């Protein structure tokens, strides 16, 4: 039996009500257990012990991200490099037998192997890739397989799939549910993502969907609001572990507070996760008058307790914006005059890519930076809003420790605010917020909360039976004031994968896949429609389960109607 005892550390395990208590954490065969008798002991005296981080919304694999990699070779030259080679001996012991660290690049769009090393090196052990088209899902799974150490899940893009939209237009919600179930299993995904509902379908004609209650371009009656409500209902009926993962309409546009609040009203009573809320919380009439709308969004959000959200915070510096929101990316291209990538995917979705630099001397960027932090500070229940940058849109995931520092230190925030343009300082309210996150609250927004929102009961906590994903941080900040930059140890599935800042062992993560309940006969309905609009044979469309090297299947039971 492979056992490990972490002794003497100060444990933060908010899911189990443990807030900074010195106690042992015991591990056997990849799980947390009550006690172990023998085996290795890590002396964590003076260190803090967290459940491994869980990223609820990131873009690390698949066609869109790979498109972005190809679009920015000039940024790769400045990226951190990862040397190919055998694992360095750590603590006098050789690395795990046969484990090899693969070459790669960090930077704004890390290569797959580097992505695994960077997440693990920061103490994160589970990531949710938030945007997968069915047509290229095979590609996404290939990349996820090449993303080592971390466990993975991924979400299927659904709010612009024309076969589903046509059914919603016709009011055939029951059949739409069967189709969604079939498509989910065809793509081997974990949940459903809705991006700019109706807007990407309209983008196929160069338009957008700006008003929630007006018909989508190309449809007679169907509105974005009906798509949102329809899909949220379908996700509930399918009883998926993760609610509808929603990227609202009008992302990034001044004055979009109204749309965001209206979307919450459309969702009334239904579960949903609102992605990268920062990009949906701007007030003002245009770019000249854009200001923070965080207060209005936070108030509405607090009034809808069935919703969760992630921050999508912005950090100053290089980023690449990647989203299925094609029309927004065209606008951003026209604003920046830089490169623009766009990939429309037949029948299903699209994606746009624009490299971007967030500048602290830009009023708009300064407001964006503040809004992300304001939302995290204004929503007082940490179980409902989680730490993300919508990597790589608002900033790179490997910069999360910088956000943690800003959340925990009001003086650090104010020092940054003083550097912003005076016009920006008048359009934000971050300076008025005194709240400082506690360590326990950090453990919630980085691990316990997102694990709960994803519906992964074995993640995000250190109770008996949980996956043994543990991160041990130093108790004192490093010289840049960052507390979470370099964990002393990261344990994934019971194995020490990071020790003193070095990746010492490489394992393959698992991939969480949900098998929803649907009627197999629905295939006869989908096939002729597929053959009409697609350009490949129907048999080649689904991802065979054998393509996933380490699937963790979650088979759902039929829901009582």
């Amino acid at each position, binding site marked *: 039996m492979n056992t490990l005892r972490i002794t003497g550390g100060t444990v933060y395990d908010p899911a189990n009500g443990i807030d900074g208590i010195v106690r042992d954490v015991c591990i056997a065969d990849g799980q947390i257990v009550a006690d172990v008798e023998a085996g290795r002991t890590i002396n964590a005296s003076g260190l803090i012990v967290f459940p491994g981080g869980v990223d609820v919304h990131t873009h690390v694999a698949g066609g869109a991200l790979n498109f972005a990699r190809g679009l920015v070779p000039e940024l790769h030259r400045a990226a951190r490099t990862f040397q190919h080679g055998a694992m360095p001996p750590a603590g006098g012991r050789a690395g795990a037998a046969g484990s090899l660290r693969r070459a790669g*690049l960090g930077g704004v769009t890390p290569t797959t192997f580097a992505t695994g090393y960077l997440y693990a090196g920061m103490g994160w052990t589970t990531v949710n890739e938030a945007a997968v088209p069915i047509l290229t899902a*095979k590609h996404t799974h290939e990349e996820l397989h090449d993303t080592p150490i971390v466990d993975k899940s991924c979400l299927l893009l659904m709010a612009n799939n024309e076969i589903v939209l046509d059914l919603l237009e016709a009011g055939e919600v029951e059949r739409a549910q069967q189709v969604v179930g079939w498509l989910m299993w065809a793509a081997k995904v974990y949940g459903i993502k809705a991006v700019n509902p109706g807007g990407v379908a309209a983008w196929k004609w160069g338009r957008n969907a700006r008003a929630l209650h007006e018909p989508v371009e190309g449809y007679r009656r169907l509105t974005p609001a009906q798509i949102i409500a329809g899909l949220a209902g379908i996700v509930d009926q399918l009883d998926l572990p993760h609610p509808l993962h929603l990227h609202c309409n009008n992302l990034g546009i001044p004055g979009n507070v109204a749309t965001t609040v209206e979307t919450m009203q459309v969702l009334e009573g239904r579960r949903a996760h609102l992605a990268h809320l920062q990009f949906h919380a701007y007030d003002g009439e245009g770019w000249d008058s854009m200001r923070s709308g965080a207060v209005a969004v936070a108030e509405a959000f607090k009034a809808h307790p069935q919703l969760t959200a992630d921050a999508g915070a912005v950090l100053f510096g290089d980023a690449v914006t990647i989203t299925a929101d094609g029309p927004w990316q065209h606008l951003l291209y026209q604003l920046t005059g830089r490169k623009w990538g766009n990939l429309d995917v037949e029948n299903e979705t699209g994606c746009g890519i624009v490299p971007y630099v967030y500048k602290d001397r830009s009023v708009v960027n300064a407001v964006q930076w503040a809004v992300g932090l304001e939302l995290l500070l204004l929503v007082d229940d940490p179980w409902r809003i989680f730490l993300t940058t919508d990597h790589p849109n608002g900033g790179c995931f490997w910069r999360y420790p910088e956000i943690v520092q800003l959340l925990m230190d009001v003086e650090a925030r104010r020092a940054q605010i003083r550097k912003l343009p005076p016009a920006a300082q008048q359009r934000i309210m971050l300076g008025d917020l005194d709240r400082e996150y506690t360590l326990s609250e950090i453990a919630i927004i980085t691990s316990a909360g997102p694990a709960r929102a994803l519906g992964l009961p074995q993640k995000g906590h250190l109770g008996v039976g949980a996956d043994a994903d543990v991160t041990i941080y130093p108790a004192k900040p490093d010289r840049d004031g960052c507390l979470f930059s370099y964990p002393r140890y990261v344990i994934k599935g019971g194995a020490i994968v990071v020790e003193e800042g070095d990746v010492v062992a490489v394992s393959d993560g698992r991939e969480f896949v949900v098998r929803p309940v649907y009627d197999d006969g629905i295939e006869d309905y989908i096939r002729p429609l597929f053959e009409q609009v697609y350009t490949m044979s129907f048999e080649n469309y689904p991802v065979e389960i054998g393509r996933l090297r380490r699937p963790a299947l979650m088979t759902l039971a039929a829901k009582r109607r």
Partner: protein
Amino acid sequence: MGGKITCTLGEVKNRADVIVYWGGNPAECHPRHFTKYTLTQKGKFVPEGRKGRTMVLVDIRETPSAKAADIVLQIRPGADFEMATSLRALIKGHRVDREAAEQTGLTLEQLQEFAGRLKGARFGVIFFGMGLSMTRGKHMNSGAILTLAAELNAFTKFVCMPMRGHGNVTGADVVLRWTTGYPFGVNLSRGFPRFNPGEFSTVDLLVRGDTDAALVLGADPGATMPEPAIEHLARIPTIVLDPKVTHTSHLARVHITTAATGISAPGTVYRMDEIPLPLRPALASPYPTDEEVIRRIRQAVTAQPAWVPAPQRA
């Protein structure tokens, strides 16, 4: 600057009413392109099929593809960049000098008519071939075309796509990007990926004589590369993995016959629009797959002692 504004081929089938082929000869090089994706298919929003679409061919000579085209624009060799740039000006309503326009081999009126047709498309697409990307101007030509397509989106819906070569060249590009960040011309000699086309691309390495050995997989450089590159391949130990004996096999030290992927070996191929397609073998083969040969070579190499001392860690 441009970027790349593109789509999967089904979007072309379902929506495109203006289809431009530029510097390519699909009738001979991609013989099923017209019938499977672009011209003759009835699309969801082009129910009349071929009648609902206009095809424009831009090339320096009248190839067999011209027969399929509604409009043929025969331009002067090497004038692709000038033509794309003139079109970029015309679509935005800028003045283009008659003499400048005529350097392309077309009249100003022809260019204006073409610019109007591009802007008037409901959903337009430009496919460009090696006649554009591998002639004078090379990546500058590609950049100009891609930018033209990007800028047309201020007026209508427009996309652009290169006509990729045979085999799984797109797949190699896709996998290299996710493993190294770069699509081709990657140098791993320092233990991490570096990229510099013109320095690290295969032809340049071979012509300069920089390589001590070569492993050739799914390609036949002995048939396609310039003479100095081929001479160097013959000079150094070259190993070829291929289902058949190629030109390169004849100048190689070692040829290993492998199972043909898609016929007797499984795998994945990426279509030119980067859609992955599974390959299911129909026949058994007595030969090993490429993957198996590479894995066994790697095992044998790993078992050898390192040729340089391992770096000492502090």
